């Protein structure tokens, strides 16, 4: 234990140098801005930075890249809250309650909550990273294809049974998502599936395109009728970028619960922020005494996924630091950049370059504080966006949505897709079919299918592998319980 503190002090002395502090600030600010723009995620942010890192020493380079990664996590949910447009898959859940909060005049509170929850998630994640890296990394190795499949099944059932309205419609949406996920070339058989001869569909449908269509553009359609209405929002409330004591108390436990959950999901190979945020939301909703408030601006429905997401990004560093393999797209970019500087993260990094490994860990502590300080004042100009009348705001959102789409793959075909999904989103909202199960199934569909096939390859075709492995069995039971719970709740609601 003494060792840990000694090393942490060494790290703090590295990260507290004037140069490094400056880069944490620049990286954090850049990341926040990148995270806010739809379609641009942390991986792109870090990639943009690579040429700048050429002249840096490796510790400064890694510190700067981590700051961008973190900044993007902080910034990702700004657009979710303000205009219902998630900047990244892990910011989808922040729309569920963040946007209703903003619409009811609590945008300042929502932005403050998101920054504070991100901060707390980040700090708890850091603590886990410092003290629990070894045991968590070892436990994560138990996680094979069968376990992965069962975890995803659980995340999916939890999302369906907890989304608004009819459970049948939830399944319908999930089915659509799965069908969309099968489009493209299948990596196992090489078969080209459901592309109808369109070459642009060979890689499948990018879920970010679907997301921008279903959320941002649909939102514009929905608000079109009210285009000349001036929002009657309480301007005093908007200006208040802080949480009250009562609000903090309300969200404290959800944040404390979600952070470890997010961290553990982040460590698992190939799981990531999407599962972490959806699961933490599902957990909070299912244990809440008033689950009906969720989706209508419940503050804990925003705080929980935000905390989970940031803790998850700490967890994603565990495989990078302990095994030298990237746990997420962003960490893959960081690994590449570091290798170009002659440093290979991995099991021996802590012994060979303790100043780098611990410098980075300490800089994240510093970075979290700094990002909180960047993000709270930044919320003040952001909330003023709400004062912009819809006839100006809606075209802006439309423009940003299409611009973001083009930046994803530089493909004009994606414009067609985004428009189609916007139309689909409008129809779905008229029929009150929930959108989250569709998006989640689309994101997880390919992974779920491959995990299922890999598990069956290993077991030589017998299904027993799913229930003979204890972790997998546990997730299957949780999935069954969440399904039963959802059906019961649904029956209660319809009987009323």
């Amino acid at each position, binding site marked *: 234990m003494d060792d840990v503190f000694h090393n942490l002090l060494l790290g703090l002395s590295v990260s507290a140098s004037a140069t490094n502090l400056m880069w944490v600030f620049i990286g954090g600010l850049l990341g926040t801005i990148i995270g806010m723009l739809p379609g641009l995620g942390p991986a792109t942010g*870090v990639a943009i930075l690579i040429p700048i890192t050429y002249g840096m020493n490796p510790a400064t380079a890694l510190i700067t890249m981590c700051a961008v990664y973190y900044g993007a996590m902080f910034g990702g949910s700004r657009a979710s809250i303000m205009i219902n447009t998630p900047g990244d898959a892990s910011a989808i859940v922040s729309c569920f309650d963040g946007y209703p909060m903003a619409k009811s005049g609590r945008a300042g509170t929502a932005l403050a909550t998101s920054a504070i929850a991100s901060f707390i998630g980040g700090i708890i994640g850091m603590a886990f990273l410092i003290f629990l890296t070894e045991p968590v990394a070892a436990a994560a190795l138990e996680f094979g294809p069968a376990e992965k499949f069962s975890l995803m099944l659980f995340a999916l059932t939890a999302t369906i049974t907890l989304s608004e309205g009819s459970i049948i419609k939830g399944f319908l949406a999930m089915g659509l998502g799965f069908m969309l996920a099968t489009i493209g070339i299948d990596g196992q058989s090489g078969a080209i599936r459901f592309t109808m001869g369109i070459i642009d569909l060979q890689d499948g449908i990018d879920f970010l395109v679907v997301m921008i269509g279903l959320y941002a553009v649909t939102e514009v359609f929905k608000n079109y009728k009210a285009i000349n209405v001036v929002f009657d929002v309480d301007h005093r409330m908007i200006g208040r970028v802080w949480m009250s004591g009562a609000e903090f108390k309300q969200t404290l436990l959800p944040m404390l619960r979600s952070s470890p959950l997010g961290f553990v999901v982040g460590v698992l190979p190939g799981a990531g922020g999407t599962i972490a945020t959806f699961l933490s939301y599902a957990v909070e909703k299912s244990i809440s005494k008033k689950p009906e408030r969720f989706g209508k601006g419940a503050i804990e429905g925003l705080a929980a996924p935000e905390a989970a997401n940031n803790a998850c990004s700490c967890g994603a560093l565990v495989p990078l630091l302990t095994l030298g393999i990237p746990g997420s*797209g962003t960490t893959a970019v960081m690994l590449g950049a570091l290798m170009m500087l002659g440093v290979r993260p991995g099991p021996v990094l802590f012994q060979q370059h303790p100043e780098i490994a611990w410098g980075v860990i300490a800089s994240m502590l510093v970075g979290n504080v700094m990002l909180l300080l960047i993000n709270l004042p930044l919320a003040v100009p952001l909330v003023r966006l709400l004062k912009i009348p819809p006839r100006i705001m809606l075209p802006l959102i439309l423009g940003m949505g299409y611009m973001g789409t083009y930046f994803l793959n530089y493909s004009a075909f994606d414009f067609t897709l985004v428009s189609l999904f916007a139309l689909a989103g409008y129809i779905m909202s008229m029929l009150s079919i929930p959108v989250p199960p569709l998006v989640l199934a689309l994101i997880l569909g390919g992974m779920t299918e491959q995990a299922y096939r890999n598990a069956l390859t290993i077991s030589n075709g017998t299904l027993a592998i799913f229930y003979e492995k204890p972790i997998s069995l546990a997730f299957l039971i949780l999935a069954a319980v969440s399904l039963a719970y959802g059906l019961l709740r649904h029956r209660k609601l319809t009987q009323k």
Partner: protein
Amino acid sequence: MNTKWILLSGLAASVMAFDYPGTALAADWKPTRPIEIVAPAGPGGGWDLLARTVQQALTQEKLVGQPVLVTNKPGGGGSAGWTYLKGKAGQGEFLAANSPLILQNNILGSSQLTYKDFFMLANLMTEWEVVAVKADAPWKGGKDFFAEMKKDPTKMNIGVGPALGNDDHIQFLTLTKAYGADPKAVKFVVYPNTAAEQIPALLGGHIQAITISMAETLEQVKAGKVRLLGVSSAERIPEIKDVATWKEQGVDFVFPHWRGVMAAPGLSAEQQKFWSDTMDKMVKTETWKKALKNLNWEAFYQPTKEYTEFLAKQDILMRESLKEVGLIK
């Protein structure tokens, strides 16, 4: 060529001669706009790294006199980015990273593009392929491992990624056949996230072996967690000098996992000469050599003519081994 064009090019040449007194002959071509290197995948992969390494060397050694940008154009296992390059015919400011996938996409039928559609500028580097098992596994080399494969293939799960039909897959198929086991009976577990999933799966005991690039396993080898059964290089590799090549183990199989760069089709002789000269200079710079060393890449420089001949031979080899397991007809 019409008069206007001659006038324009004459003007351009005189401007250039003015800019670079004494160095530029009238026939020389130099890029007049920023150079774009297309990485036909997202950030973080092998193409992306190669594109950024070339960018670094060209910029720091001031070889092109223009800014160099890397753009990521993911899609179609490279085809999206390469199609974009093909659309820049005759323009000398565009390069793209490539690898054996440009052959394999065509062989497997997912793309119509071939290497013949481009100016194959230079092959630059290679990695070597290995088969890795857990350090506490009973197998020491290819012979005892594939004997086990022959005895009971249902107990052996082989991790490969991101999709079947790539170099990793072809290496394992070739070895299986060479050691007398049945390539069709091999159980391949496909990991779309490659090493990020393959290595934890191997260490966690979910699969028995992985077929993968050497560099991806190096940290685990150093930490004593993984053993390499053999490597596809011609000579032993210094970082892993205890690992015998397949050739030493009696299998006549040397298999590079190379990456290079190509330029748009339809370039003029001057444009081709500019880039060939630039690559010749680049591979000799300290920046380039140091970058290769840092990335654990081996230099594998082949200028255009050699590169094109090499590709023609590789194309035949891959078609043969994929035909054998029935992945193509």
